[in-house]
């Protein structure tokens, strides 16, 4: 390779260097540090002692960890299912060019850009027993009598959070599915039409199979996003009622910044990391094997 050309190529390294260094320092390094910290009794207030596997040992016997993991999984399953179903419905409705469809798309995507925290404050107000519109409406319609304290019962608390999350994120699911659908060649549908296939049949034997890569990606995004839920629980349910809605990230926050035990917090973080890596890998492997077919 000639001199100037090689120099030009080396310039590429200079271009990527700042970003890569930042990623190394603020991401790769912290992952390593987290792993190291998890072997320490590491107080937020300063002291640290090496304790070997003690944090992991404690983690295995910690009922609140397992409970939280179970809850987060349940929440993830419900949110993922709800997002896929609603997302599919909306995507099917707005995928074709039609007068006014652009407006509908905009409306459905609009909540996506609002933060989870902001959306939670909004929900807090709408659902408040005394000043909220929703309980007031329910009372006026005679659906309920007396106080409507949605965050005092596990099913209603979870329902409200799931509705909030679907409202806030389904626009994204819809967009992804929609662009996946639009990428499917029209020839397939025309062939199906010639064969006289029903709508349902067309959906299940053409749209869905060809949409697999998109669906898999939506799945990965939704599952990871749901496993990392924090804001909405921290603000709306505050873990209640009776500690039934504590997602894993809340536990990590609590151990580190309320109990000041960064070491234990780090062990939980590593646990979460491993779970997410396994989940993502499984989903990607499934996607890959399907693609190979």
């Amino acid at each position, binding site marked *: 390779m000639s001199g100037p050309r090689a120099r*030009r*190529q080396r*310039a*590429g390294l200079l271009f*990527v260097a700042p*970003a*890569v260094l930042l*990623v190394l320092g603020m*991401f790769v*390094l*912290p*992952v390593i*540090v*987290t792993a190291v*910290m998890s072997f320490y009794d590491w107080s937020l207030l300063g002291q640290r002692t090496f304790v070997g596997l003690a944090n992991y040992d404690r983690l295995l016997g910690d009922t609140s960890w397992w409970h939280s993991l179970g809850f987060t999984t349940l929440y993830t399953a419900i949110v993922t299912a709800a997002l896929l179903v609603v997302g599919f419905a*909306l995507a099917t*409705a*707005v995928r*074709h060019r*039609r007068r*006014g469809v652009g407006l*509908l798309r905009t409306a*459905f*995507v*609009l*909540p996506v850009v*609002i*933060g*989870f*925290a*902001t959306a939670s*404050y*909004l929900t807090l107000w*709408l659902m408040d027993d*005394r*000043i*909220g*519109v929703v309980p*007031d409406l329910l*009372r006026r319609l005679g659906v309920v009598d007396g106080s409507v304290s949605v965050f005092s019962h596990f099913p209603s608390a979870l329902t409200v959070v799931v509705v909030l999350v679907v*409202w806030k994120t389904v626009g994204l699911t819809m*967009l*992804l599915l929609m*662009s996946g659908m639009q990428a499917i060649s029209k020839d397939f549908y025309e062939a199906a*039409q010639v064969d006289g296939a029903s709508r349902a049949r067309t959906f299940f034997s053409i749209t869905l199979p060809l949409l697999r890569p*998109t669906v898999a*990606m939506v799945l990965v995004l939704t599952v990871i996003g749901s496993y*990392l839920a*924090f804001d909405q629980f*921290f*603000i709306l349910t505050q873990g209640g009622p009776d500690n039934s809605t504590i997602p894993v990230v809340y536990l990590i*926050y609590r151990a*580190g*910044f309320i109990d000041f035990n*960064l070491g234990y*917090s780090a062990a939980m*973080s590593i646990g*979460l*990391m491993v779970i*997410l890596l396994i989940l993502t890998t499984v989903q990607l492997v499934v996607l890959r094997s399907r693609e190979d077919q």
Partner: protein
Amino acid sequence: MTRRTAWLPAIAFYAIGGLLALLFVAPVGWLVLASFKSGTEFAQTPPTYLPQTWSLENYRRLVEAGLFRNVLNSVVAAAGTVVAATVLCVLAGYGFARFRFRFRGVLFLVVLSTLMIPFQSIVPSLYVILDTLHLTNSLAGLILVYTVFALPFGIFTMRAAFAAVPAAIEEAAIMDGAGTLTTLRRVLLPVVSPGVATVALYAFFTAWNEFLAALIFTTRQEQYTLPVVLANLQTGAGGLLNWGVLETGAVFAAVPCVLIFLILQRYYVAGLTGGAVKG
């Protein structure tokens, strides 16, 4: 195609679609309207559905409570993140797309791997690292963290954007004797500007809406971003919560996002679907 779109009668389609769209937009719209109630009316039982008397009291109280400072913090954090992330992503995207250098593949993989390991799972060590750098006290620390959040997606998008530019354009500029940076600035940047807009938007929403990192890494009320100061308002009140101020704060948190989205949604949607589907 005709049969496909006709299955649902137009009236039903627009009725259901319109109703749904209203359901999606109404909460925010309602919040904005309600923020113009007086403080007492906002907190009254049963609630009024629309302001009986229009008032700016909640906004005045919000300013009096010093929350404007927190709005400003959010603006600074978001602006800083947008600038830093956009510059870094453009440079890195250019580097990854247009140059062949040693370790290129590995380094790109490192950047992408951050998508697999979410920041929520490295919070304890990130805290310790920022603390060591004396950055837990400052918006600069937050900007740093948010910039890293925005990098993987941004670099990915910019790499795709640069890769899509025909090589001839760049070569012509080099023939004319333009340096690498000049080529980037004068020739390539205008071509990839939609990608830049996408990255900037994404960075803005990340920084403006982020909650957990801001909750943990900022130390004092005067440094809080908007979402965090609202959490304090909510929990610190002990039965004496000023609902009007809290929800007016939420208006400040929501409305900029909505406006920016409405103006620039083309780039937002293109970035998300384009980048994501190709991945």
